[in-house]
């Protein structure tokens, strides 16, 4: 079969498989839908450029690490330009509903209002913790997958996730406290 055709087929198959994963990660990491679109586009273009260097079966790891690196680069560029991180209100539009199991309707309502606060709280976490948490909690990756993809020891991944969750809990408690104080 023609070499170009094979390349095209491989590219489209990887894109179809991971495009939403890339976008989800970028969205929650950057807190802005528009920036996430830019980064996702950058990742996919990079994928096309480096497709021949990516071994079969390692595309997932390559995509995860590239998305994470490009998101970090984007945040640093944004900081250099003096723009501050804002959580876009449009971040939750067009998202797939993912109802948590074993929750009462009241808890579900609480959770949906909480999700906005969590999205904001995520942006306050250090980049390493934020990235790993998004992979674990939102992208449903196993500890092992994250460790393999980011080439980090398994225990480091566990510690990042642990600390990230603790930090999220603290940030949310603080924001609730501030809301109550304002009210």
């Amino acid at each position: 079969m023609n070499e170009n055709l094979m390349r095209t087929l491989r590219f489209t198959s990887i894109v179809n498989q991971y495009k939403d994963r890339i976008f989800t990660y970028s969205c929650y990491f950057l807190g802005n839908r528009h920036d996430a679109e830019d980064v996702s586009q950058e990742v996919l273009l990079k994928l096309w450029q480096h497709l021949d260097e990516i071994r079969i079966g390692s595309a997932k790891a390559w995509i995860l690490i590239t998305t994470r690196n490009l998101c970090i680069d984007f945040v640093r560029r944004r900081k250099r330009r003096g723009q501050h991180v804002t959580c876009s209100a449009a971040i939750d539009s067009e998202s797939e509903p993912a109802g948590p199991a074993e929750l009462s309707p009241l808890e579900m309502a609480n959770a949906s209002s909480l999700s906005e606060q969590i999205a904001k709280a995520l942006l306050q976490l250090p980049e390493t913790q934020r990235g790993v948490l998004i992979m674990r909690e939102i992208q449903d990756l196993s500890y092992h997958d994250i460790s393999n993809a980011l080439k980090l020891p398994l225990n480091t991944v566990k510690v990042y996730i642990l600390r990230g969750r603790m930090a999220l809990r603290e940030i949310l408690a603080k924001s609730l406290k501030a809301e109550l104080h304002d009210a």
Partner: protein
Amino acid sequence: MPDTLEKPCRGLSEQIMLYAFNELGFWRRRKLKSHLRRCADCSATYQDYRLLNAGIESLGKKRLPELTLQHVLLRTLGATATSKSVRPTPVVRKWGIAVAGVLLLLVAAAIWQTTEKWNHRQYSQAEIQNAKAEVQTALGMVGKVMNRTQATLANQAVTQNIARPVWQGLEMALKPLMHGG
């Protein structure tokens, strides 16, 4: 989630969190469950993490907008499609040949017209005289060349028809003498 954080019992913070996120093993879970029934602070911490887990789960996954995807495909697959050398279809090839033929005919017609004009040019007497003189010189030269050619050919004929057989005869006659001697 309360505005102040309850502190769980020492060493249980991690386990409570893992339990809330469904990552705790069976036996530890059993042990922790019984503890949570007795300890209010640990129970409150567990509720916090449970709510956090629910909130995170409700965040959901995002879909890459179609427009962005199309843009990417255009810049990758589209770019390669345009960069490829386009092979003409038979119809295009036929038309190309026809157009080239017409162009050739036009060029030939243009050349023919200019030479025609050149042919119908009016010459002065002096030019005609010069041309006659040149033609006569040329004819003279051609005559000389023809004479020389004739002489050369005649020499060749002598060599071929007379000299060579004589030489061959002599060779034949002298052969026994040369070998025998």
